[in-house]
């Protein structure tokens, strides 16, 4: 018993030491608890719609996938901060969860439910037909005949990838650039298509002969990890591309792409990141990154939620383009000084031409 008592005393002393400076929030009206997590909520939202509830269902990758689930989820979080709404979320652990998660959220009073990825396509459509008063949006998917209350959110990522290909071609010293994907699905290969076409365009304009390894546009075939999680697979694919002579690599493989960046770092080469600005989301590799092909899933989700709040929601599919800012090329960050002004101007010019339709990318 003595021993137990001693342990109890030690534990409570430790607890006292660790917790002594906290305060109960209700004691003082302002948020003075000094707790960093609660200070977030104290930022005053632009608007306040406490009765509006926006919700989200992840696919089986989960919201912490450092990839499209996570970026989409950022949009939900941002909407909560900006519009003062309530949110709820349901993370799917397997395909069997989709229908029940959608149903649980519908019961929980959600007025707008976003889902992430084509895997949820069927389940979202079924839920939308069942709950006609709820607005649905689905990231990275579109329906041929969407139900009245479902909005597909697509992204023309080949547009900024085209710019990235042009940039890579202008910066390569070995005259070989590479790319690889996480899986051979359209949302991945569209990046690789745009990238390779951007390189081709550079070759035409400059009469150069820069080669792309890891993706063949005509055959629609190339290098894939077939896994968005396994970084070592990304690393070995990137190493293979570097062995083939590539000195700039664009991994399109979510977290598995981080392994690619590791390989690039070890070989002292350069890289281009995708989905988010790599200098923010993978800051430790920022000094390798020429730029990033950004896919504004968060922006699209937030806009879709906003349209439901305003009552302007339609089932018309959204496509993020360079024009509406749904996709873009990230700043050059550490390479800003290395890339000459002429190239920067050419890329700006290309961007304008893509927006005006003078150059078609797809």
């Amino acid at each position, binding site marked *: 018993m003595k021993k137990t008592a001693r342990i109890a005393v030690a534990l409570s002393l430790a*607890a*006292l030491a660790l*917790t*002594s*400076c*906290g*305060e*109960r*929030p209700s004691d003082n009206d302002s948020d003075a*608890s000094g*707790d960093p*997590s*609660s200070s977030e909520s104290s930022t005053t939202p632009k608007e306040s719609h406490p009765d509006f509830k926006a919700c989200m269902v992840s*696919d*089986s990758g989960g919201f912490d996938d450092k990839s499209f689930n996570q970026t989409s989820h950022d949009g939900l979080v941002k909407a909560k901060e900006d519009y003062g709404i309530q949110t*709820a*979320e*349901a*993370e*799917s*652990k*397997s*395909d*069997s*969860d989709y229908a*029940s*998660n959608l149903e*649980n*959220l519908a*019961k*929980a009073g959600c007025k707008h439910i976003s889902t992430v990825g*084509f*895997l949820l396509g*069927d389940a979202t459509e079924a839920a939308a037909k069942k709950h006609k008063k709820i607005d649905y949006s689905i990231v990275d998917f579109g329906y041929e005949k969407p139900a009245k209350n479902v909005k597909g959110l697509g992204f023309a990522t080949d547009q900024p990838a085209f710019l990235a290909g042009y940039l890579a071609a202008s910066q390569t010293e070995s005259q070989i650039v590479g790319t690889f994907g996480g*899986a*051979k*699905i*359209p949302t991945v290969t569209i990046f690789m298509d745009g990238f390779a076409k951007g390189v081709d365009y550079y070759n035409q304009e400059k009469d150069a002969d820069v080669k792309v390894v890891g993706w063949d546009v005509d055959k629609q075939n190339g290098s894939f990890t*077939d896994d968005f999680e396994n970084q070592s697979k990304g690393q070995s694919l990137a190493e293979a591309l570097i062995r083939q002579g590539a000195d700039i690599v664009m991994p399109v493989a979510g977290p598995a792409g981080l392994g690619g960046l590791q390989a690039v770092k070890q070989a002292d080469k350069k890289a281009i990141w995708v989905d988010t600005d790599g200098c923010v989301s993978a800051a430790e590799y920022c000094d390798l990154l020429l730029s990033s092909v950004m896919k504004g899933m968060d922006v699209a989700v937030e806009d879709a939620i906003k349209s439901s709040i305003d009552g302007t929601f339609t089932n018309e599919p959204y496509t993020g383009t360079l024009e509406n800012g749904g996709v873009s090329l990230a700043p050059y960050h550490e390479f800003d000084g290395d890339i000459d002004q002429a190239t920067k101007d050419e890329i700006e010019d290309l961007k304008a031409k893509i927006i005006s339709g003078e150059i078609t990318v797809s």
Partner: protein
Amino acid sequence: MSEKDDKVPAEESSPAESPARTDGPTASSTSGEGEPGAKSGSEDATATKSPETKPAGRSSSALVDTVLTTAAAIFLALVIGAVLMALSNQEVIDSMGYFFVYPWDFFTRSFDVVTTSYGALLKASLGSGEAVSHTLNRAAPLICAGLGVSLAFRSGLFNIGAQGQIILGTLAASYVGFTWDLPAVLLLPTSVLAGILAGALWGAIAGLLKAATGAHEVISTIMLNSIAASGILAYALGEMKSFQRPGDELGLPQSPPVPDSAAFPEVFGVHLGVLLAILAAVVVWWLLTRSTLGFELRSVGANPDASRTAGMSTGKVFILTMAIAGALSGLAATMLINGDQASNNASLVGTIGFDAITVALLGRGTPLGSVLAGLLFGALAVGGGAMQTSSAGTAPEIVQVVQGLIVLFVAAPAAVRWLVRQRRKEPTDTFAAKEATA
């Protein structure tokens, strides 16, 4: 071979016989040794090794013991889950900041979080007819695949290959289901049969490799899992147009769902595949305890060398066991394809093949145990989704932690006994523990 007294007498023996702890010492002395290769046969620990002494009585007390240990393991896992739930909740964390000013806040909030979460879990898994139907549908594939792993355990085979067998099963069942043009009366059985056969074939390969070359089934089933997932499934969905949805310009890697004519009929939201799963459990029970093959299977599991000396063909047993285990995994696949009418894609099977191993471990390698464990995990999976949409917003990962802890405690009964102060003299007496010592 001393296996005659295992499962069945244990269940059938009357409670009157049960206060038979008298022979405890015998059991401990024998079970402690853990004969080499005796992975099987010892679902409850029991008395498998010394048949001379009051088998029935000992089995029944061992059964009580098993039930108690399992219940304690589940209870402890839920308690730890509750603690994690509370400690991962922001409001509770906040309240710890001023614990010594208003200690009561911490407890009330923790209590709220835990009751809300477990309340949501219970309500979503058992709270209504609809909830029960969700649980049953979710449990069906786990039960089938769990039975497959259990059966292999009993013959001394550690079948890690349920995952690959299920994947092959889904491919065959869905392909037949959505491409073959048969009348409805035939389409459903053909599709289900295709799934079962594909699983059986994939399982039999591992058995054949073991019988012919001695290749260890753990290694070969793991490799077969990879071939099924990264090879066959990825190729079929990615490259073969006939597996993809007709008219899908994008070529998304997913199959169409099977038509209604290839789907199990539903009664009150429960598809009839669930009945098949229960039926499969009965068949496995019969096979293990009442058939010649079952006797050979358990005998090989207990001691392959002795069985060979006694004139049994261990190779035949390995191949047949793995084929039947694969068939059960294939049946699990039909629960997804013909039961849920899910479209086949890279993530459809998820982790069912690996959850099946935990189902079999928790079920102590017995058919009844697999059914109960499958139901428990099915309920937890359904309820876990509801916990996160409840007002407490508890992460669904907690459910996986709870599942893991249950199995861990079941595998370490000594620790559980220590924790619940259920001191008894018998050491390692569970299926899993014996696995470890063997």
